[in-house]
């Protein structure tokens, strides 16, 4: 795969991932390669950032290793086949359910049915520990963020923003349209695997 690596300040490299590849899959491949000098790898919607141990690291040797890995394959794809599906039970009674239905010109029960029916995948995590941006949802449910973010959204709130669904792992400020809630624990730092959702995880919302 032919991509450009650009420095992102003194201690990170930025990779724009072509449409044909999946940013989460590319980030996972870089993480699993355990390249010397890399402290972390993080993916977004279509960008992957490689964090270097410190600006003292010879970033040229890291760049060389990263480039070699990227060139080793034509494209990076996720492999949902064989992946365990994480089921998240939801009660659909969120404060923005009516507003979402109105915006999408659907009935509330239609919104619930459509949200329920889709199979999702974690495109990337961000915003807060354990917060996964879930893609694969029904296109008819695309909604803007709230014009005024709430100062506090309870843990377990299930929301929509743009093409994404997401679950707030902990209480905090938030601008997503809240349609329901879950009792699932999304993040527990004391567990060996702290996050229920990781980039690539397949998710279904169940009753």
């Amino acid at each position, binding site marked *: 795969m032919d991509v450009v690596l*650009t*420095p*992102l*300040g*003194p*201690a*990170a490299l*930025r990779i724009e991932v072509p449409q044909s590849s999946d940013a989460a899959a590319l*980030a996972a491949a870089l*993480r699993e390669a355990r390249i010397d000098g890399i*402290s*972390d*790898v*993080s*993916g*977004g*919607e*279509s*960008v*992957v*950032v490689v*964090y270097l141990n410190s*600006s003292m690291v010879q970033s040229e040797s890291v760049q060389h290793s990263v480039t070699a890995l990227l060139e080793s394959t034509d494209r990076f794809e996720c492999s949902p086949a064989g992946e365990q599906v994480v089921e998240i039970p939801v009660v659909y009674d969120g404060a923005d359910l009516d507003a979402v239905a109105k915006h999408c010109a659907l009935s509330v029960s239609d919104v619930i049915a459509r949200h329920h029916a889709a199979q999702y995948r974690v495109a*990337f*995590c*961000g*915003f*807060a*520990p*354990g*917060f*996964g*941006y879930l893609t694969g949802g029904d296109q008819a449910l695309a909604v803007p963020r709230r014009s005024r973010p709430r100062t506090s959204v309870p843990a377990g709130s299930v929301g929509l923003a743009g093409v994404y669904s997401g679950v707030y792992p*902990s209480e905090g400020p938030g601008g997503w349209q809240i349609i329901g809630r879950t009792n699932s624990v999304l*993040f527990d*730092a004391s567990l060996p695997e*702290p*996050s229920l959702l*990781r*980039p690539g995880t397949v998710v279904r919302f169940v009753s």
Partner: protein
Amino acid sequence: MIEVLDPGPLALVEDLGRLGYAHLGVGPSGPADRRSFTLANRLVRNRADAVGIELLLGGFVMLARADLELAVCGTDSDVVVDGRAHGSHTSVIVSEGAEVAIGPPSRGLRNYLAVRGGLAVDAVLGSAATDTMSGLGPAPLRAGDLIALAATAPVGVSVDMAPVDLVGSEISVDLLPGPHREWFGIETDRFVDATQFEVDADSNRIGVRLSGAMQRRDGEIASEPMVRGALQVPPDGNPIALLADFPVTGGYPVYGIVDSGGIDRLAQARPGAGVRFFRRGWEG
């Protein structure tokens, strides 16, 4: 053991941060001014990653429950031991039973208190850093907290005093090129070169908010991973320089990246301070 008698405005346990979890939405955190933090550790012969305390605007008072050696770096605060003032940026020997008060700084915001051997604080995901954004790590210190001392072996090199450049009311920082050039034009570059930005009062460990409206295109970028020092430009044009507790992904275009020395200075900038950016390594 040390006992916190008064934490002052904000006292946070920090180490060099939480690495390896960005893909789960966990940021690195760590000291806002890394240089002062590592210097404080060096002065007491600790490894750079020993656990210490970040103090906001002094006012911290503690009781030494053992003989200890400590150092305070970052601002010009006095280190007052049983009523006797010592300087900052030097190591101070304290006897068991002594009361240590960190005075208010005349310049700068944040002090780092390092104790010989480091502090023994439980790690969360491999780090004892308090992340004010995610809530991970120890809670802010309160009066009555007892903190055990770790016994990490000293490193060889010893310095007993460090010359420092304290941050004043006008700050210069180097700015490296950012990833979203197409969101900004040459007019924005000229504006940045000519403008003294001002630090806003609602700045914190997540970001230093600056006044000075930069021109940018309308819209949002697809969320992408951020770095410490990223100069994000929200729709109103007033930039935000991300500090230690930055959110790992963001949706505002990034004009430039503040270099590491610049981040340390911004972390010491008081509200109202003037900030000038010097673009380094930009084409054209």
